[in-house]
């Protein structure tokens, strides 16, 4: 009886040490950013992307596996958004044109699937970058994806009119090549600030 209790304790200790080792080995100390850099939040340890299936603007499926083996920047918004979303896309476009930027996937995901079908999303992303990916899908799938990342959103006004407003979390998310949320960059966004933060985060955690 006592012996089995001891071996149980030993097993627990081994598991505990294993977990601790895993995090110490895998996760470096959190990246310290300069004090005057506000609104850049590092996830340490990183948050794995949940299981989900979206539809890309070209009609193909997109799941969390599509984040693997590359760094991605993703913005959640809606195509009817006049200011903040097109601005984030302009920042993406300016970054994509910068030859110094290491290979990066740029993604726009809608939180307004009622209006943003695949053809609308395609018009929107193609306007900003020919290689950009636009994502839409079932509201349930969007929530599966958006919730763990803290993407809060809400519809304001008459949702049966064409002009309702979507209030939404407007950060740019940095996803690492293991499909994990590594950091997010709060608005307001401009090319210099976003790119400097992204490259710093990427160089540190790569």
């Amino acid at each position, binding site marked *: 009886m006592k012996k089995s209790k001891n071996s149980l304790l030993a097993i627990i200790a081994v598991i505990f040490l294993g977990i601790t080792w895993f995090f110490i080995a895998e996760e470096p100390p959190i990246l310290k950013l300069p004090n005057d850099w506000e*609104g850049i939040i590092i996830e340490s340890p990183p948050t794995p992307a949940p299981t989900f299936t979206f539809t890309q603007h070209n009609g193909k499926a997109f799941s969390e596996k599509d984040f693997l083996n590359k760094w991605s920047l993703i913005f959640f*918004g809606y*195509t*009817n*958004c*006049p*200011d*903040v979303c*097109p*601005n984030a896309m*302009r920042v993406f476009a300016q970054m994509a044109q910068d030859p110094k930027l290491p290979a990066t996937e740029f993604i726009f995901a809608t939180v307004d699937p009622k209006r943003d079908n695949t053809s*609308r999303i395609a*018009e*929107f992303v*193609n*306007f*900003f970058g020919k290689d950009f990916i636009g994502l839409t899908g079932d509201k349930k799938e969007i929530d599966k994806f958006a919730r763990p990342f803290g993407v*809060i959103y809400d519809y304001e006004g008459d949702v049966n009119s*064409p*002009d309702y*407003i979507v*209030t*939404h*979390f*407007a*950060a740019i998310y940095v996803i690492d090549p293991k499909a994990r949320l590594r950091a997010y960059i*709060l*608005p*307001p*966004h401009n090319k210099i600030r976003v790119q400097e933060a992204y490259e710093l985060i990427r160089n540190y955690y790569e």
Partner: protein
Amino acid sequence: MSSFATITNKRLTGFFFSLLLSANSWAQTQPELVDAWITAAPPGSRNLAGYFIFENKTTNNFKIIKVKSPAFEKVEMHQVSFPNGMMRMTEIEELALPAGQTVAFETGTRHLMLIGPKHALPIGSKVKVDFSLNNGEIINAQLDVRR
């Protein structure tokens, strides 16, 4: 004959009166729009944003009470804020333009929300936008569509 003269007279009076008014508005300068533009948007966009800087170099306080454009169904002034990283837009009913000050409409702060374009607005085209002031005058502005 005499009635005709009266009408002419009235018309003339009206003409001179309006001349006087316009001369008066020339002297009393209005706030001005500087670097006014509209962001070129993807085809099919229902909402576009306009940006500019209001310069009120006069010694009077003004308010913008209404904005309209023949190219859009509706035009609103919006304030953008980011409470806890959320993007929130609220309509500005009246925009104060204090004497001697500038008010910027730029991304992440304020924008003109141009709703329901009546025709395509290609890059390089110009859009007429009228800003009504609280004193009854109108600022006629031209906004350039650009990327």
